[in-house]
């Protein structure tokens, strides 16, 4: 069976089907209202999205630069999945020719000689035309800056396509620029680029995570066990849990995404955590009894705590399956499966292997736990002072930090500074251009479309108000294009105020004229049947909160300036991503809530002592509270990855408590006093707890190497929580137990 899963994995990895998929569609349920609306909009307006390419050069009005730009634009337009490229070398405008003909043609003139370089006179005319047309200002050029220009690339936007076409497109554009070394600098931005970078980051993570976790496993295994046999047992459990889970994913043809790429690393570390207890317990027993008895006693001793630790960890991950974000659901489900298999193999395969491999005892030394002995000083007075301080500080952090914790998503800040896209967004922002196109869609009632006189005039006013919103750098609208057509056709007889009061017939016929002159820019903004109009709003990149504010402002403008029967909504890939915030917050709430209730019930059932239950709850809730508090204090937001911290952390950190408290109860049941029971428990399981913490923390720490910051943050903060939990279990829990239990029981 293992071989079968392994084969499936290999076949999947080398098959043509994509292994990594971060396309938009995978993050939402198919009936998600925003997604459905976005899909419809996307199909109606040609399944395209805008990629922004900003070029920096000595002067955009240098004829040699313009010649290169024309060539670059043409080459980009030839690339697969590119629909249209608009640059100052390709943009068209309406002209009156020398023969008084109305012509819609490129502003960039044809060179008159074979060098392909335009003359100074042509250049001056081109510059005059660019600056004179308000559509181009703050869109392709800026009036006061001559060294920047933007190229707008319209490329395919296939919501469900898992193929790496976006990565290939970005690479192809980069390759084109490699052949123009005299271009000073360029910056590429847009949802295509973000998506491509997500895929690239996931691919990098696959190689880095799996290399690191393998090394960690080897190093940890050797340092801990100092022999090949125990290493083999450890690897057997790892393979027995990770292979089937990953094989199942491969069998179901589920590609990796930014969330599930973390799965093997997490599974490996959690699988090892379980078997470490088994191996250590076996050797401890084997010192005194035969290997048969050692196996028996190991299982007797550990089956309950292992079962409960597996249950809590499975529950911690399973709580993620309530999420409506599919990758989170996948992580929860398959991690749960893997942990279950790890538990089964830890208690079946590993004892068998230990029995087979260890016919003779392993040399084993018992270390006195002097540290614990110190902690459990009968006096205890001097421990109360620091314990109160420690608890006080531990509570201060969450109290101040949690209030600052917020959910906010900004994909441009999701990659570290070494990643090109981060610098690109900063450069575009500094240059004063927009970094993000957002679509404001106006839906007209049936039978009464765009050119209806009343609607047309109210939309003109709506657009004017939209332009003055603080977030808006520029809008691109069909009305702007029609205004240009009107100026050309009715030259000398029209003005802005005349245009603003045109009737339906006039608007329709200007649209027709646009069609006759092959002005396909209009098709990007207005559906042929005129039932929907898209206003492309160019803004700086907005985080999800900023986008929410913008949507509220648009809604307000709609109520003020547009008739009630017109439906207006804001859409776009960034809008969809921003909407995930709600789902992310819900994921965190539900998973935390679920696992908390489960733990409460479990502790009460297991320990039947309110003292132990109180201590157990405290030492498990505090690591998470402190971690979330630290996140709030340092400004880390709740996002798609950090939202997973709560449920997973609780499910993982409780393992140490369960092992420790089970051993305490064991000794208590044998008539030992509380102090001695705690000391003996720590002596017996302390080393295992420390070892398991090291491997689990190490596994999550591997995730901190990701260039996708949410994953890195997830790794860092789960590691922090696990480390704090260890300190609390070994240091604080014994002291609290000592304080809570009356001296008559000691």
């Amino acid at each position, binding site marked *: 069976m293992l071989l079968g899963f392994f084969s499936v994995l290999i076949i999947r990895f080398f098959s043509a089907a994509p292994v990594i998929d971060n396309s938009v569609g995978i993050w939402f349920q198919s009936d998600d209202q925003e997604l459905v609306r976005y899909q419809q909009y996307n199909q109606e307006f040609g399944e395209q999205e805008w990629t922004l390419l900003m070029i920096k050069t000595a002067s955009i009005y240098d004829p040699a630069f313009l010649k290169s730009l024309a060539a670059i634009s043409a080459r980009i337009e030839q690339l697969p999945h590119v629909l249209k490229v608009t640059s100052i070398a390709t943009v068209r405008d309406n002209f009156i020719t020398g023969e008084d003909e109305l012509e819609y043609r490129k502003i960039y003139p044809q060179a008159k000689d074979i060098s392909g370089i335009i003359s100074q006179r042509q250049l001056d005319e081109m510059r005059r035309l660019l600056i004179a047309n308000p559509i181009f200002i703050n869109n392709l050029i800026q009036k006061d800056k001559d060294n920047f220009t933007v190229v707008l690339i319209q490329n395919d936007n296939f919501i469900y396509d898992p193929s790496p076409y976006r990565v290939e497109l970005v690479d192809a554009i980069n390759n084109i620029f490699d052949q123009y070394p005299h271009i000073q600098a360029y910056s590429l931005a847009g949802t295509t680029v973000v998506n491509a970078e997500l895929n690239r980051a996931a691919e990098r993570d696959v190689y880095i995570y799996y290399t690191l976790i393998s090394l960690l496993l080897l190093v940890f295994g050797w340092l801990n066990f100092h022999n090949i046999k125990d290493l083999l047992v450890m690897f057997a459990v790892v393979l027995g849990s990770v292979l089937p889970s990953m094989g199942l994913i491969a069998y179901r043809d589920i590609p990796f995404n930014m969330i599930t790429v973390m799965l093997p690393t997490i599974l490996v570390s959690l699988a090892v955590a379980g078997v470490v207890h088994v191996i250590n317990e076996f050797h401890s027993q084997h010192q005194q009894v035969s290997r048969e008895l050692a196996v028996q006693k190991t299982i007797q001793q550990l089956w309950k705590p292992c079962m409960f630790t597996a249950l809590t960890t499975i529950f911690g991950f399973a709580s993620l399956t309530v999420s409506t974000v599919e990758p989170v659901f996948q992580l929860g489900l398959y991690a749960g499966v893997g942990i279950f298999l790890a538990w089964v193999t830890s208690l079946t395969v590993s004892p068998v292997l230990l029995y087979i491999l260890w016919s003779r005892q392993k040399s084993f030394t018992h270390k006195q736990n002097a540290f614990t002995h110190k902690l459990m000083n009968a006096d205890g007075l001097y421990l109360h002072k620091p314990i109160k301080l420690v608890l006080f500080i531990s509570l201060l952090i969450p109290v101040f930090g949690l209030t600052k914790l917020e959910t906010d998503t900004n994909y441009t800040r999701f990659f570290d500074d070494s990643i090109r896209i981060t610098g690109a967004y900063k450069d575009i922002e500094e240059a004063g251009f927009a970094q993000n196109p957002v679509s404001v869609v106006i839906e007209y009632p049936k039978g009464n479309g765009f050119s209806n006189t009343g609607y047309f005039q109210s939309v003109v006013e709506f657009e004017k108000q939209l332009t003055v919103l603080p977030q808006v750098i520029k809008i691109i609208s069909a009305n702007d294009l029609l205004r240009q057509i009107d100026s050309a056709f009715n030259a000398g007889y029209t003005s802005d105020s005349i245009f603003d009061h045109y009737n339906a017939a006039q608007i329709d016929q200007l649209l027709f004229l646009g*069609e006759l002159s092959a002005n396909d820019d209009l098709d990007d903004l207005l559906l*042929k049947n005129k039932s929907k109009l898209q206003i492309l709003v160019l803004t700086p990149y907005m985080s999800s909160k900023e986008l929410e504010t913008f949507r509220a402002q648009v809604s307000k403008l709609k109520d003020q300036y547009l008739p009630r029967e017109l439906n207006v909504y804001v859409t776009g890939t960034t809008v969809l991503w921003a909407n995930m915030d709600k789902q992310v917050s819900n994921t965190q709430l539900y998973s935390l809530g679920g696992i908390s209730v489960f733990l409460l019930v479990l502790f009460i059932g297991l320990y039947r002592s309110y003292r132990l239950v109180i201590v157990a709850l405290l030492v498990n809730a505090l690591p998470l509270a402190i971690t979330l508090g630290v996140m709030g204090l340092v400004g880390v937001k709740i996002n798609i990855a950090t939202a997973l911290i709560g449920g997973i952390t609780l499910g993982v950190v409780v393992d140490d408590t369960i092992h420790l408290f089970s051993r305490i109860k064991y000794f208590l049941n044998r008539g030992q006093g509380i102090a001695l029971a705690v000391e003996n428990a720590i002596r017996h399981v302390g080393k295992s707890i420390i070892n398991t913490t090291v491997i689990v923390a190490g596994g999550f720490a591997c995730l901190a190497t990701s260039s996708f910051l949410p994953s890195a943050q997830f790794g860092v903060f789960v590691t922090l929580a696990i480390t704090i939990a260890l300190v609390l279990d070994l240091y604080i829990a014994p002291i609290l137990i000592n304080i809570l239990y009356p001296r008559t029981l000691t």
Partner: protein
Amino acid sequence: MRVPISSFITACVFVSWISSAIAEELSLDTKGRDIMSKVIERDNGFEDFSADVEMSIVDENGSTWVRRMQVSDLEIGGGGEKRLFVFHYPKDVKGTAVLSHTQGIEEKQWIFLPAFKRVRRISTANKSSPFVGSEFSYEDLASIELEKYRYRYVKMENYSGIECYVVEMQPIYKNSGYAKQLAIVDSTEFIVRRMDYFDHEDELLKTLELEDYQLFIDQYWRPLKLHMVNHQNRRKTLMEWSDIKYRNGLSDNDLSVTALKRAR
């Protein structure tokens, strides 16, 4: 210097082989030109005709919209023609008219927008641009002028049970949207059954199928259906002609710029 006999014979064989190859090429070119010349001649001398046209434009998603227009065509001396399109449907373009004058490779065009009561001359430089958003470009709708192309006979082909000539046409006029066209010509009637259009990367761009040919005034074959498919963007346009009337007595004044404003 004496030339060896063997070299002389080799040179003669080589020259005659080259000559026959060139001759064969020239004959293919001539044959192609002759065929298309007959196609063009077939259509000459009609004087004028008028027709109603319904154009159904289908985009890549299957959405369809319809335009209806009346077309009037007038032959002018020297091998040119004047053509007037007056749009009737949908309501938003009713009364809009487009007039074109073609003489050889020269072409002029005007548009009338009734809402503004204004006529404007529009450029014909962009022949490859689509006509009213359809898959027919201005270039496709213009009649074939012999001097506009270089021709070459390719082969015989059976097309829908009809023996046809396949003739390659390479535009020699400026700003054509095509590298070449393949005309499938009925070898009996010298009418075009199908046209394949190739872009400047030599990729097949569009195919036009001309169907439901009818004979008018015992002389002129006219297809009632023209079906253009764009293979690259998956869009289609169907043009259906009806109420075709020849020799209505149209004159230059009826298809002049001043007449545009009166067009209904």
